[in-house]
């Protein structure tokens, strides 16, 4: 079933399907329901990176040096991790400035320089030609091979065939026609090609599925899985060294690193990658998914490369089959006709995807940045006066597409045969890598100038031309070979493949090293010695500070314009319909209607028109056109600087203002908190006063009551009188004690208490205190048990105060012990740097709630309304203050019915503590 007409029919059927998809997506986009506004479609469209190079060439490369094909995919994986910083910035800049291509981006950054845009375009076109020729070669070769089925015959040498019978020419022409239909049916102000992106995403799926199908067939159909395949390869003496391939190659690791870096740059600066990543991006957030989905795609399409390469080498040991064709020839050799057809379609997908996007991107560049600026400057043509230029724009792009593909074909005829697919592609990679310094510098380095970028590019490209393109032509015998072997005019030092005697590297590494030195060196040096113009200064600030989000470029315009003039300019390039739409949109954004309400031709409006125009004809051309339609007063460099300074001053001021208001807020919060604390203290003081007066009144009341009785009744019996006097004495004592304690507390809390700190032996204190209270214990019938450690290190504290604490705890214990059955246990121990004293009783115990409050002032356990309070309610509070003053802790452990245990700790005296106490 692999007859010629079936293959041709299938190919055209497939191209037709692509066109249908594109048409459908365009229709949807026109109705505002975009199909490509999805991170998945976006990620798939990035996979336009995988071309015929990946599809056929990787296997070819793997068959000769194992993993050597992988840096091309590892590099982008590493680079894409940096995209959140780099690519997001480029996308943001491009959207704000309506950038239409890579050339437009670089030209806009360096002062909308038409010259720079033109140079970038020329470099891109020449640099990409080898890459396009690679696709043509792959498609025409695969077509020729499939036609020979069931024989496997390699295509005849190019050059042996007359031009008109050469499949590659027809492939080029058909692809040109197809691309024209695809990309230049109408003119879009934003240079969006929704249909193309949808078709590319579909192609990415097709080529992945086709490649995986061959991979599975070779690995598991022909051989018995990965293990079997690698075992057989290892047994083959010719293949075994490829399993550890980095040993044998000269400069193996160096070339590996440079290939990685090269592909890191290529993924950003290939015109088609810039097109799908930046220009066709619908939403910055799509980068998120793409950051891991796109590398995953590359991983998937590379898994079977090595198995197919080894499978091919094992299957065709004579070496008469080109390794670049293994993907196709293996299924053919196994009589898998359907699979072979699928592979052919997959290869076609890979090649057409690349050619379509690349030539559309290049034709936009050629039109906007090369041809239009020249035409607009040629006054003889009077272009600026023509009413409608849309036809002219489309015409230029269509011819550019045809021309680029024919040039690609020419390169294929000139130099296509001398190199394998991957080597051809790498030449293009090295060319677009030259854009890296100008772009990276452009978005991060404000002082980079137009001259720096221009001469850097020219220097880098010059070295590329000399070290890569000339040798390619020489090897194909279009230039004398002596150029390579002896150098130009016999000057050894200038040999293109060993410039200045740098030998021992592979060609790409050699070229990359020299071209990057030249490019970066000249770019930086010239930038440093040249000064920017006003335009450059303005654009540099817009690009580098894009995330600062300071308005657009409208601030920089000054002059007079009229609305009809602006309308005419726009209508000439976009057509009247699109111009009307743009004006209506502008009016709508300002809450007006057009043409009913008038519009003011102010700086904002002029800027808006320029941006609209830039979307169609590029920044540099748009600038020329707008300048021709309005009377513009040129700003001097100083004025631009002033505007920029003003803007940054405003930013600084607003930052300061923000900071001040934040400080103010913090101060307010602090004040509020302080106020709250004061209110709380005031309330506590009031509470304290009322409690103290209440406590004082109770004993006073009883003293007064009994004194009055005695005064009024002189004839009270002696026994009764004595009883009353005893009560009065007791209440007076209580009063005194209370007042003493209140004074004591006031002193401690205000920090005016006198502390006589000495070295104190707690054993001694406990012993003395217990001895002092022995009478009380005896009276109440309370048994006292002591457990005192033999040796206790001294603590530094006030002896009298400690006695006060102990007395308080012991008398509390006595108070709560049932008379006659009471038992008090006092223990003293040393633990972890502290001396600990426990006083345990067997009283009624304290509930958990009461435990929380007994250390507060005037809080006593039990209902103070019904039972007469047994103390002042200050003792425990004062005790705790004392213990804490000496760096210790006082607490209680108890459960109702099981007694209570009051404990306190004091830190053992250290040298430092002793010094502090002294």
């Amino acid at each position: 079933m692999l007859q010629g007409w079936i293959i041709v029919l299938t190919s055209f059927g497939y191209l037709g399907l692509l066109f249908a998809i594109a048409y459908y997506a365009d229709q949807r986009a026109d109705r505002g329901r975009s199909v490509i506004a999805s991170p998945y479609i976006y990620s798939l469209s990035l996979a336009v990176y995988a071309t015929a190079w990946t599809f056929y060439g990787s296997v070819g490369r793997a068959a000769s040096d194992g993993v050597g094909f992988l840096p091309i995919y590892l590099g982008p994986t590493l680079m894409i991790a940096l995209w959140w910083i780099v690519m997001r910035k480029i996308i943001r800049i491009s959207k704000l400035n309506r950038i239409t291509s890579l050339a437009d981006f670089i030209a806009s950054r360096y002062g909308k320089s038409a010259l720079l845009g033109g140079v970038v375009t020329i470099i891109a076109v020449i640099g990409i030609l080898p890459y396009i020729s690679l696709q043509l070669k792959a498609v025409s070769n695969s077509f020729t091979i499939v036609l020979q089925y069931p024989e496997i015959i390699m295509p005849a040498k190019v050059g042996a065939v007359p031009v008109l019978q050469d499949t590659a020419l027809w492939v080029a022409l058909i692809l040109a026609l197809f691309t024209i239909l695809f990309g230049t049916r109408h003119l879009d102000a934003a240079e969006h090609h929704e249909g193309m992106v949808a078709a590319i995403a579909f192609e990415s799926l097709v080529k992945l599925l086709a490649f995986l199908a061959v991979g599975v067939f070779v690995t598991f159909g022909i051989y018995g899985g990965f293990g079997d395949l690698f075992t057989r390869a290892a047994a083959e003496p010719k293949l075994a060294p490829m399993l550890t391939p980095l040993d044998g190659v000269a400069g193996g690791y160096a070339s590996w690193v440079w290939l990685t870096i090269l592909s890191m740059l290529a993924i950003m600066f290939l015109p088609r990658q810039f097109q799908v990543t930046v220009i066709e991006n619908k939403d910055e957030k799509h980068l998120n998914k793409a950051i891991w989905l796109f590398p995953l795609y590359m991983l998937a399409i590379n898994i079977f490369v090595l198995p197919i390469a080894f499978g091919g080498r094992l299957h065709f040991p004579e070496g008469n089959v080109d390794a670049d064709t293994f993907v196709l020839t293996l299924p053919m050799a196994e009589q898998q006709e359907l699979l072979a057809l699928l592979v052919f379609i997959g290869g076609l997908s890979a090649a057409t995807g690349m050619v379509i996007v690349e030539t559309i991107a290049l034709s936009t560049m050629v039109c906007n940045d090369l041809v239009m600026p020249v035409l607009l400057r040629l006054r003889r043509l009077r272009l600026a006066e023509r009413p409608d230029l849309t036809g002219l724009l489309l015409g230029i792009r269509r011819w550019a597409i045809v021309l680029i593909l024919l040039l690609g074909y020419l390169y294929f005829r000139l130099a296509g045969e001398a190199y394998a697919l991957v080597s051809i592609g790498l030449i293009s990679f090295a060319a677009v890598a030259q854009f890296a310094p100008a772009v990276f510098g452009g978005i991060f380095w404000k002082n980079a100038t137009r001259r720096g970028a221009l001469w850097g590019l020219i220097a880098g490209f010059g070295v590329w031309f000399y070290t890569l393109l000339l040798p390619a032509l020489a090897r194909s015998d279009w230039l004398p070979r002596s150029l390579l072997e002896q150098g130009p005019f016999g000057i050894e030092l200038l040999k293109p493949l060993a410039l200045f005697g740098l030998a021992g590297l592979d060609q790409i590494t050699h070229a990359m090293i020299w071209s990057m030195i030249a490019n970066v060196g000249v770019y930086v040096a010239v930038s440093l010695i040249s000064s920017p113009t006003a335009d450059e200064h303005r654009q540099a600030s817009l690009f580098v500070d894009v995330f600062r989000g300071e308005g657009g470029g409208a601030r920089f315009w000054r002059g007079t314009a009229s609305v009809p003039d602006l309308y005419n300019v726009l209508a000439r390039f976009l057509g009247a319909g699109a111009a009307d739409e743009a004006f209506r949109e502008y009016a709508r954004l300002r809450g007006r209607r057009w043409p009913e309400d008038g519009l003011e031709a102010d700086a904002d409006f002029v800027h808006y028109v320029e941006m609209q125009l830039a979307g169609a004809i590029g920044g540099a051309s748009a600038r020329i056109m707008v300048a021709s339609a309005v009377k513009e007063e040129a700003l001097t460099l100083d004025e631009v600087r002033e505007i920029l300074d003003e803007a940054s001053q405003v930013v600084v001021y607003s930052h300061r203002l923000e900071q001040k208001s934040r400080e103010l807020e913090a101060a307010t919060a602090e004040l509020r908190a302080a106020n709250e604390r004061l209110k709380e203290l005031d309330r506590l003081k009031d509470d304290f006063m009322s409690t103290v007066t209440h406590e004082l009144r109770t004993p006073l009341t009883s003293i007064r009551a009994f004194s009055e009785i005695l005064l009024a009744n002189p004839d009270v019996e002696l026994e009764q009188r004595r009883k009353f006097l005893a009560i009065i004495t007791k209440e007076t004592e209580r009063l005194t004690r209370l007042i003493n304690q209140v004074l004591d507390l006031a002193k401690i809390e205000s920090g005016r208490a006198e502390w006589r700190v000495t070295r104190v032996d707690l054993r001694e204190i406990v012993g003395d205190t217990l001895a002092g209270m022995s009478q009380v214990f005896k009276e109440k019938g309370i048994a006292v048990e002591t457990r005192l450690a033999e040796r206790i290190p001294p603590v530094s504290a006030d002896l009298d105060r400690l006695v006060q604490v102990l007395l308080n705890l012991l008398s509390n214990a006595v108070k709560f012990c049932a008379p006659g059955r009471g038992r008090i246990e006092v223990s003293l121990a040393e633990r972890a740097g502290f001396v600990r004293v426990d006083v345990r009783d067997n009283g009624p115990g304290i509930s958990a709630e009461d435990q929380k409050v007994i250390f507060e002032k005037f809080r006593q356990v039990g209902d103070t309304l019904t039972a007469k309070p047994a103390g002042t309610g200050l003792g425990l509070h004062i005790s705790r203050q004392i213990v804490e003053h000496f760096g210790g802790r006082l607490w209680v452990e108890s459960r109702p019915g099981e007694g209570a245990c009051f404990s306190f700790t004091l830190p053992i005296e250290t040298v430092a503590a002793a010094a502090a106490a002294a």
Partner: protein
Amino acid sequence: MNGYGSKAQRLVALCLLGFLLFNYPILALFNKAGTLFGIPLLYAHIFAAWAALIGLMALVVERDDS
């Protein structure tokens, strides 16, 4: 906002990690005879590290909602 939040920093760190894993001398450690599950050591290392890197990148990107 300057756009260099923690997500950007983590991604940069992953890029550096990748550069380390796919370069001399780490690569040289695996560039010798021997197989892992029937797959030559060097190939196994590259593809496993590659997959792990993609997994980590997905983790960093998807866990960040901003």
